[in-house]
């Protein structure tokens, strides 16, 4: 049974159709990639899937439940986490606090118990901090835990955003251009990390322009063009698909 099922999804902005009746699904344990020329609707798709903007039509089913049109915090609580193409870390917090904020769903201190700060609250804070340190170790930012997040270089901010998303222990993580702006070695590091995330039991859906990365790590690739799905299949199938080649020839020559 698929983890995520998207059926005839639609999103319009005024007269512009950003997503045009797109249907696909993700099996648990997969790394699936979405590619397409600029403006193909990839980020919009992520925004719709995570409830940042509501869909205009179609259906989204996750872990066999309908989540179409849900608010983003409810979708997150069902187990979908994400990162952003334009990084949205909490720049005025420390690196550690960023990840601790990511633990929001897996902790439960409310306003009143927080006010009294009794033993269970104190204990939960310590647990969250320890878990966050473990996650920082996993993404390689342990020694930066107390740094101000906004002061980190871009590559580390991308890692921090992934760590923060992982802290909610999602069953599906959406990575929006995770290697944009990264160097070659950093990109290879990240590819390893993405595999480790999948091996840890989290299904991965990613958008990126780095074809060698995509072809290297993905189990399946979905191609969007002008909001429409034009191809779906294994990396090898996609590389030889005529429609895909045509779409990309029109867009970029590299």
């Amino acid at each position, binding site marked *: 049974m698929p983890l995520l099922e998207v059926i005839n999804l639609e999103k319009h902005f005024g007269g512009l159709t950003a997503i045009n009746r797109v249907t696909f699904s993700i099996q648990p344990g997969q790394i699936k990639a979405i590619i397409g020329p600029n403006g193909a609707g990839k980020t919009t798709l992520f925004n719709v899937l995570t409830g940042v903007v509501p869909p205009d039509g179609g259906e989204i089913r996750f872990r066999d439940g309908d989540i179409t049109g849900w608010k983003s915090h409810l979708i*997150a609580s069902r187990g979908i986490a994400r990162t952003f193409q334009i990084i*949205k870390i909490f720049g005025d917090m420390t690196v550690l606090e960023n990840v601790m904020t990511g633990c929001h769903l897996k902790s439960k201190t409310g*306003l009143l118990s927080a*006010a009294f700060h009794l033993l269970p609250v104190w204990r939960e*804070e310590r647990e969250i901090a320890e878990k966050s340190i473990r996650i920082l170790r996993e993404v390689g930012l342990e020694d930066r835990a107390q740094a101000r997040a906004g002061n980190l270089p871009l590559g580390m901010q991308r890692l921090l955003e992934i760590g923060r998303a992982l802290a909610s222990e999602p069953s599906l993580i959406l990575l929006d251009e995770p290697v944009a702006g990264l160097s070659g070695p950093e990109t290879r590091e990240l590819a390893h990390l993405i595999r480790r995330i999948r091996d840890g039991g989290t299904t991965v859906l990613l958008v990126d322009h780095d074809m060698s990365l995509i072809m290297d790590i993905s189990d399946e690739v979905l191609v969007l063009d002008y909001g429409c799905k034009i191809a779906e299949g294994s990396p090898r199938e996609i590389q030889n698909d005529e429609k895909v080649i045509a779409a990309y020839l029109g867009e970029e020559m590299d």
Partner: protein
Amino acid sequence: MIKSNYLALLILALVLAFIPLAISNVYYLGILIFVGINSLITIGLSLLMGYAGQISLGHAAFFGLGAYLSGVLSTRLAVPPVSALLLAALFTALVALLIGLPTLRLKGHYLAMATLGFGQIVYIVFNAWVEMTGGPSGFGNIPRLRIGGVVFDTDLKYFYLVWGLVVVGLFFAVNIIHSRVGRALRTMHTSEVAAGTLGINTVRYKIQIFVISAVYASVAGSLYAYFVTFLSPGTFGISFSILLVTMVVFGGRFSVWGALLGTAVLSILPESLRIIKDYDVLVYGAVLLLVMIFFPEGLVGLIGRVFRPRSLPEKLRT
């Protein structure tokens, strides 16, 4: 972080314990009691302004609800003061919830406008419901606060009661800020979108903080009623709501300590400088405008810059 705040609280408590010994003049003790009552309101208000990113222009009304409900319940219905204080706080919390629920779902100016309108309505009711409130001339004979066998009938006792509650109020506020809830609120400074995708229901926390801040104001109002034992509507108008906002902004709205500092300075200065009392509107307007334009982090931010030059911009450091 939380530990240094606890240390500051401890120092504050010690200083407060000895203040009455150093002050012989009852008049000054009275002023300090008012500073404490105002601080209780502004601590709650700074949680709302600095952490939930919202503004209330009706906190004088929540303060007034606490005062009038306590006063009316204790004088007309002979409810014991502590029960009256708690009932007033509960009622105020419900009212705040009713206002917050619809308006905090929406972005922007809505809460500010709703609280402004609500504040004015409450003010009108205090004036117009003469049978209950005594109308514009007010009503008196409110009994003294009594907890168990202790009657708080001297300024000295009241000083310790009010400031004891301020310390408790600060303790709660500091704990909230340095908690899961505080972190959730701080995300709103940067990205509500990111917060949502982490499962944080920002609306819910905004509403909770708004209700809590109204409760702080209500408790302060009850303390005010049992201290002055006479209430009239003049104290609870829009201009007091705006003065409270000015205190928070002046002290530094991103810190509960700023609220305390701003309240102390703006409550004590007019007592010593006649010119501020005569032209209070002009002075407060100018203060608010200058602070917002030139040092939006208020006094606390300014002091921080003096003592921690590391936080200065790069070019000023050498």
